[in-house]
């Protein structure tokens, strides 16, 4: 079943399936229901990195260098860990500036320079052509192999005419499919959703096919992975392949390949296309960061087993290791598996060729052909002609041209190299973009001239040390070029430039080209300050991840006519799409009629962005400049605008800080307000209590006075008793009013304090003398326990006496008559004096202990026991003690009596003087 017609039919069926998927993807995208808006599909589309080079070539490389094929996949894995910074920045910049390709990216960064875009395009095309040749070679040789079944070695290419060469037809077929995939639409925008969907499917197919071969070789031909390795390790020649230093040349090679592959994943045109240009949403990057490396790991898992299996099985038969993936199933008569492998290889090749040529054709069209065409007066720029068809034609032509160039390289140099060798030449070429790209994203000082010089220098060194030798090896240049150097000058030997020996040719090229590239980029950039255009673009790129940066429109000044802009955009996008785009812009700005649009900087910027998506930023700039009267900004003006933007940034930060402070102040105010409300409520409570306390004696006085007035016959003893009550109630009233005034004075700070040195012993003694009558009346024993002598203390003698008397009269009130005992103690310790008044009364309940110091709150149950006293004594006492820096508290257990204790600090000179 492996005859030519069958294989061809299967191949076309597969390509038709891919096309159907792409078609469906485009339809869904038009309907606004993107199928590629899925992180897994995004990660799979990045796996376009794995071409036939991986598919067939990794095994070939593993057969020579053992694990030496791995750096090509470890590098991208490492770079993906930086994806959160680097790729995110690239994606955001590209979206903000409608970047269509890597050439566009570099051109846009350095002041939308058409020259730079053109140079990058030329380098990319020249650098990638060998890589495309590699795909053609792989498909052609795998086709030749499979139709030659059961032979395992393809007949040598006869070098016959082009028209008898399978590769030529494969190139044409691939060109046709690429045109169908990438430039089917008449809208020349940068995105191709259908293509991405097809590429994701291809990634699944190639992984499955390769995995199937791996499983077949490991478990079908050998008894599992352990058996395979055990047999290989018994052969010392093969055992060496399992080590790095002996297998590949050295750790230096290992390192440069890792670096090279890491840069390739960022700067290969097809990787830039799927990762940056086709990215639907930044959020998808997150999963791709680990899913893509996982894909790489899976597809490489069986590379070494297949290589070792092939080497053992085909020992001495001269089978090319690059073909093991296909020849192993064929040698075991697994025709279906062989067909699947062929389709997998086709997937790897078509995926790469389609994306790469689309990306390159966009670059060729936008950055090479359009700028040239727009310069020629004969194209009559000002005619109202629809150029969107022309754009597509240019792209289609570019696709065919690029594939034919690939074919040409294949004819010239293809046979001299293994697959991996060719791929590395391309990797080294795109690595030359690294300084201008990474420098441009992180260094404001890089200029257009610097980037031009760096790229030219790096490219020249690359061409001299890698590309020309590849021609030389294929006989297109004399072999003496490699062995003796240019013009026979030993120092110019391309693989040992300036006598640098000991490195493999890739590391050698990488070192010299990077030295030249970075050196020229930095030195030339530093020769002069950036121009206005460069500085404004630098900010757009370097500050891409910052939230507030000046939008492009802030950096444009001039006048334009809205109708001209619409017409201009219409010429490249087609009039209908242009009308729709401007209508939606008008709606966003609240205008129903797009013809009323004002041609301000915003609209000009919008038009330029629309054009940039179709013809690249540099050409878009030139086109807009052709219809708008632009007043060029000088460097100081640009700097002012950028400064303003950064000032705005700091203002906004300042504003944020202020609003945070305001929030905090609001919170404090709220708390203060609540406190005020609480105080207000307390005041109300206090007024209510005061009124209540005043009313009780007043009621009593009034009642007895009325009795005396209304009933003159009241007996004398009764009369005297009533008058006695009236007098005592009046006294209580007076006391109450005095205390309220006292309290108010203390609280308001208006009380008069007579502060002097006080002997607390005498205070206590005098207080006891003043209350001794109360004790005698009630038959309460009062005992005294004074320290022999205490230090003098600063205080108001009368006030302190007031405290002690209050405590004593409280105590006498609560002790039982006749067997009550009250003890007063005065103790001194290091820094305070302490007075306690202890009684053997009923004690104070725990829940009352805290409230008895509140105003008008008394111990006991107010409902059942008649309150004694005014309820202000303790609060006043506490205020007095606290005024002198002391404390007043109670210690009591119900039934065990109570101790009221106050302590005064000895060192209270400050207290009482400043309240």
């Amino acid at each position: 079943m492996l005859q030519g017609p069958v294989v061809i039919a299967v191949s076309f069926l597969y390509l038709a399936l891919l096309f159907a998927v792409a078609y469906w993807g485009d339809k869904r995208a038009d309907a606004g229901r993107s199928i590629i808006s899925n992180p897994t599909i995004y990660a799979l589309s990045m796996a376009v990195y794995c071409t036939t080079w991986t598919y067939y070539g990794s095994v070939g490389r593993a057969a020579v260098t053992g694990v030496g094929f791995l750096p090509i996949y470890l590098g991208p894995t490492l770079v993906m860990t930086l994806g959160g910074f680097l790729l995110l920045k690239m994606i955001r910049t590209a979206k903000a500036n409608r970047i269509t390709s890597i050439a566009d990216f570099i051109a846009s960064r350095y002041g939308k320079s058409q020259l730079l875009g053109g140079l990058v395009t030329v380098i990319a095309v020249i650098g990638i052509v060998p890589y495309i040749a590699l795909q053609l070679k792989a498909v052609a040789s795998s086709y030749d192999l499979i139709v030659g079944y059961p032979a395992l070695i393809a007949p040598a290419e006869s070098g016959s005419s082009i028209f008898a060469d399978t590769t030529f037809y494969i190139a044409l077929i691939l060109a046709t499919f690429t045109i169908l995939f990438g430039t089917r639409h008449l809208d020349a925008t940068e995105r191709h959703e259908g293509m991405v969907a097809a590429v994701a499917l291809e990634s699944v197919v190639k992984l499955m096919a390769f995995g199937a071969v791996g499983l077949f070789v490991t478990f079908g031909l050998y008894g599992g992975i352990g058996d395979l390795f055990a047999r290989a390790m018994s052969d010392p020649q093969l055992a060496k392949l399992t080590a790095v230093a002996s297998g590949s040349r050295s750790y230096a090679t290992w390192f440069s390949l890792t670096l090279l592959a890491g840069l390739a994943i960022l700067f290969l045109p097809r990787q830039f296309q799927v990762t940056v240009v086709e990215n639907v949403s930044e959020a998808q990057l997150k999963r791709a960061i680990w899913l893509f490396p996982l894909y790489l790991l899976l597809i490489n898992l069986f590379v070494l087993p297949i290589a070792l299996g092939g080497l053992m099985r085909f020992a001495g038969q001269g089978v090319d290791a690059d073909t093991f993936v296909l020849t192993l199933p064929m040698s075991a008569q697994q025709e279906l598996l062989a067909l699947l492998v062929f389709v997998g290889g086709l997937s790897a090749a078509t995926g790469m060729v389609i994306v790469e040529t689309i990306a390159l054709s966009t670059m060729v069209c936008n950055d090479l052909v359009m700028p040239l065409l727009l310069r020629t007066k004969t194209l009559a720029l000002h005619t109202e002609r629809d150029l969107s068809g022309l754009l597509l034609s240019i792209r289609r032509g570019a696709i065919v041209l690029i594939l034919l160039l690939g074919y040409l390289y294949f004819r010239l140099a293809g046979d001299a190299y293994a697959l991996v060798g060719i791929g590395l030449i391309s990797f080294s070429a795109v690595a030359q973009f690294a300084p201008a790209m990474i420098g441009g994203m992180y260094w404001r000082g890089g200029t257009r001239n610097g980037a031009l010089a760096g790229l030219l220098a790096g490219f020249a060194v690359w061409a001299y040390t890698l590309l020309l030798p590849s021609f030389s090896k294929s006989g297109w240049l004399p072999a003496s070029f490699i062995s003796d150097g240019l013009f026979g000058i030993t120092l110019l030997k391309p693989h040992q430039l300036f006598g640098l020996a000991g490195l493999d040719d890739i590391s050698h090229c990488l070192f010299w080209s990077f030295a030249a590239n970075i050196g020229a980029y930095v030195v030339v950039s530093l020769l002069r300050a950036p121009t206005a255009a460069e500085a404004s673009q630098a900010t757009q790129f370097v500050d891409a991840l910052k939230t507030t940066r000046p939008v492009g429109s802030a950096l444009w000044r001039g006048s334009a006519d809205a109708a001209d802009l619409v017409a201009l955009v219409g010429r490249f996008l087609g009039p209908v799409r242009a009308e729709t785009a401007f209508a939606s812009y008008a709606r966003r700005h609240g205008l129903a009629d797009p013809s009323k649009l004002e041609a301000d900087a915003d609209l000009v910027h919008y038009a330029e962005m629309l054009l940039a998506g179709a013809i690249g930023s540099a050409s878009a700039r030139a086109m807009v400049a052709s219809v708008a009267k632009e007043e060029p900004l000088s460097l100081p003006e640009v700097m002012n605008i950028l400064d303003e933007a950064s000032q705005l940034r700091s203002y906004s930060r300042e504003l944020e800080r202020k609003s945070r402070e305001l929030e905090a102040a609001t919170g404090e105010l709220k708390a203060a307000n609540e406190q005020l409300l609480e105080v207000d409520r307390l005041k109300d409570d206090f007024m209510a209590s005061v009124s209540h306390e005043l009313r009780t004696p007043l009621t009593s006085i009034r009642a007895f006075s009325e009795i005396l007035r209304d009933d003159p016959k009241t007996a004398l003893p009764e009369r005297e008793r009533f008058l006695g009550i009236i007098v005592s109630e009046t006294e209580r009233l007076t006391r109450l009013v005095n205390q309220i005034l006292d309290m108010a004075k203390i609280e308001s700070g208006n009380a008069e304090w007579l502060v002097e040195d006080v002997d607390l012993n005498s205070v206590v003694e005098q207080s006891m003398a003043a209350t001794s009558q109360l004790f005698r009346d009630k038959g309460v024993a009062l005992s005294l326990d004074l320290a022999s002598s205490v230090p003098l203390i600063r205080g108001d003698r009368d006030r302190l006496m007031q405290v002690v008397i209050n405590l004593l009269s409280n105590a006498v009130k609560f002790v039982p008559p006749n067997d009550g005992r009250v003890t007063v103690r005065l103790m001194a310790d290091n820094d305070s004096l302490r007075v306690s008044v202890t009684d053997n009364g009923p004690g104070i309940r725990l829940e009352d202990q805290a409230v008895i110091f509140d105003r008008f709150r008394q111990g006991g149950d107010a409902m059942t026991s008649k309150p004694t006293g005014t309820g202000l004594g303790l609060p006043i006492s506490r205020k007095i003690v606290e005024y002198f820096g002391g404390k007043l508290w109670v210690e009591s257990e119900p039934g065990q009596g109570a101790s009221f204790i106050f302590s005064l600090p000895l060192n209270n000179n400050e207290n009482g003087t400043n309240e």
Partner: protein
Amino acid sequence: MQKSTLTGQRLVAVFLVGCILFNYPVLSLFDRVATLFDLPLVFAYLFGAWGGLILLMAWVVERRSDQRTERSGG
């Protein structure tokens, strides 16, 4: 200001770990003809470290709780 700065820093740390694991001199420690679980030592090491690194990356970027705090913080 920059969203998910913590995740970014973690990924840079993973990058540095990877650079160390996949290069001389750590690589040379495993670079000899020997076997581990019937696999060639360097083969087992490279794929093991690679897989571990991918797990670490997945763990760093897919942590849910972190993102929420970062989003509110950023």
